[in-house]
């Protein structure tokens, strides 16, 4: 990793008892939130639940950063994702460098996605489930990944890889979601989780409030989860602290 010129400000996995559990908020396309929303909403909710939050935006969301995902008990990502032919998912980062990641492209762990950004259409590096399984290390028990992006939940291979890496629960969307519905859904789910609700309860409550659904080109997308629906922030925290001992 050092050879890749990693962002150095990232914390290492907690190693001492009593250390605050850590959460990661990744926002590679901060300009693409729904009107009035920013990633700060997720940061605040996670902080209110007792997490020390690392918040990275835009070009800070690099491929090396994605290698540190397993250091966190809860990961929230607002980004673009898309399906791959083998039912894996591509999850866009804010990184547009390619040559230095040749090794990962060669193993088909990284792909490029053509995405409209503030600087026009650009090719962004996107990690796959294969990348997460191979290069991010082992996640702590009951860790929660909230991937606020299109279609990732329908991609069975993506979940197989995340589960292999130790992820407890994946929250994401079936089919497409637009930015505003994604922000609204995330707010409701994270708020419920911060109140101590389980993942399945949080998603049910989001539905009851009219969130967690999105219609894109006439097709209904829904927020859902796979893995442990009884998972909570408390469980994710205790899993992380157990793993650190």
């Amino acid at each position, binding site marked *: 990793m050092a050879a890749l010129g990693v962002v150095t400000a990232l914390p290492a996995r907690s190693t001492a008892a009593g250390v605050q559990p850590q959460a990661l908020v990744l926002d590679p396309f901060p300009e693409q939130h729904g009107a009035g929303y920013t990633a700060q909403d997720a940061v605040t909710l996670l902080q209110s639940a007792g997490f020390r939050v690392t918040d990275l935006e835009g070009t800070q969301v690099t491929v090396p950063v994605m290698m540190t995902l397993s250091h966190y008990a809860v990961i929230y990502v607002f980004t673009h994702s898309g399906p*791959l032919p083998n*039912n894996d998912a591509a999850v866009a980062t804010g990184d547009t460098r390619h040559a230095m990641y040749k090794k990962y492209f060669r193993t088909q762990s990284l792909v490029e996605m053509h995405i409209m950004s503030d600087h026009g259409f650009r090719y962004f590096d996107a990690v796959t489930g294969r990348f997460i399984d191979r290069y991010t290390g082992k996640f702590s028990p009951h860790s929660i990944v909230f991937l606020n992006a299109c*279609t990732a939940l329908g991609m069975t*291979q993506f979940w197989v890889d995340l589960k292999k890496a130790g992820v407890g629960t994946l929250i994401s969307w079936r089919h*497409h979601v637009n930015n*505003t519905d994604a922000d609204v859904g995330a707010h409701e789910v994270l708020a419920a989780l911060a109140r101590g609700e389980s993942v399945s309860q949080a998603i049910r409550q989001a539905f009851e409030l009219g969130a967690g659904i999105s219609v894109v080109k006439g097709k209904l997308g829904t927020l859902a989860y796979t893995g442990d629906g009884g998972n909570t922030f408390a469980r994710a925290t205790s899993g992380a602290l157990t793993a650190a001992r």
Partner: protein
Amino acid sequence: MSRTRLVVAMTTAGVLALGVVSLGRPAAAAVPLEAATATATATVGTVTATATSTATAVVATGTATATPPPPPPPPSVATATATAAAPTATATAAPLGASAVLVARANVRHVGASALVRWTMAYQLGVKGFRIYAHRRDLTPRLIHPHHARSYSARVPWTNGGHYSLHILFKNGHTQTKAIR
């Protein structure tokens, strides 16, 4: 599961904007959901909106109620009331999806009466095979199977001014098409 979702979709289709207002967010969030019936725009700060229904939202309780559209429309008007200041913005709902780049490069070369089509795959896990088309005409007698090396070439008749399309067939039944010229 699907029954639950259907109920949610039917009962909340007109309410999501209200939920948003109740959070102190701009009602513009409703744009995509109401796209099938109308385009809704709203500015919560000044609390004006156009939509197909009349709406009231209460910030303090986080609850929202909606009444059906007023009969007969002159252009319908929705009124939202919010007790907290909220940011004002114009919504542009955009999907959070994009396609991964599967084909790194592709080109075609005119060689006598034939065309030599060449392409290199960036990602080919889950690919079942390839076919080359000119308009709707399949020029490949047999499916071209993927192999370990990611570069491919195929000789096909020169036709359609050298405009071809590469059809990438996935094992999961989906297909992606890329134009080559």
